[in-house]
């Protein structure tokens, strides 16, 4: 009834986009806010 799941830590999407040279253009195009996913205003 208690299970341990090993988590892996990899490079984030941000890091990999930066390495690929596409992050700056992307962030210029889309405004990033870490709270954007928390959609309090939407009626779930």
């Amino acid at each position, binding site marked *: *009834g*208690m*299970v*341990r*799941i*090993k*988590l*892996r*830590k*990899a*490079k*984030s*999407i*941000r*890091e*990999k*986009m930066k390495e*690929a040279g*596409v992050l700056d253009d*992307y962030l210029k195009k*889309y405004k*990033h*806010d*870490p*709270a*954007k*996913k*928390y*959609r*309090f*205003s939407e009626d*779930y």
Partner: protein
Amino acid sequence: VVDEPITNHLDSSYFGEISIGTPPQNFLVLFDTGSSNLWVPSTYCRALPSSPSRAVNHAKFQPNESSTFTYNGQSFTLSYGRKLTWRPLPLQIQSITVTNQEFGLSENEPTQPFYYADFDGILGMGYPSLAAGGTPTALQGMLQQNQLTQPIFSFYFSRQPTYSYGGELILGGVDTQLFQGDIVWAPVTQELYWQVMLDEFAIGQSATGWCSQGCQAIVPADGAPAVPGQLRSGRGRPADQLWLNCNEVQNMPTITFVINGAQLPLYPSAYVLNNNGYCTLGIEATYLPSQNGQPLWILGDVFLKEYYTVFDTGNNRIGFATS
């Protein structure tokens, strides 16, 4: 359907393995306490023109290879694309088996950034009321089928994470070997996200009073922490671009979160990221308020590395203990 870029997962980097279907097909999923749907890519997935290789770069569920697949004719839309809902299939997470778990299959690649993700899909661990399409959450399935000893899950993030070991998700309880001292509990203030009341925030020895009118803090296990943007007025740029002198880190203050009367300090060694001698602040700014208008704080991976965190669905509370 309007596809929105998956910017909300730009900083996600911890994930684990699950299996879906019969015979099992394996996927790496983000265990996301900020959403409540389970979805993975499928062979129906179409790459977006903006994708670097025009090909989907992840493990894909192959319905034809599962003996029990049937499309149930429904779809739901997440902020980053539409998902087709499939009739329940077995979900396996190590020794846990949920015999009937609805899940979503992407029918399109959820925008450009996802191409770069090391995980294939997302297993949402938020409250059921957050599940798009009303699909039962994986945790609901585990509890209804008596797969867990307790209605609890907890996260441990290693302070020196690697690809092979970044920490652990413990389903069904807490592991007392992963923390020390007592667990500080705080009631969930909204059964949607895992959200608690933040009483006070202190810098060094000084209480700021910034939360005198109330603050809400969300505890995600999927990204970077953030502070309300108005506290960073004048900077004019994201916190993650702030370069710091590594030699000055030791002189920076301890910041302390007060939750349910307990002081939870973060030392500069925790909130300043040192990448081969280049130091940056590991805290972002957010400009969006919580649902009641109070400033929203996000206690992300920087916080979770220091504090073993317990999510108690039975008592609707979150617990913190020194990791």
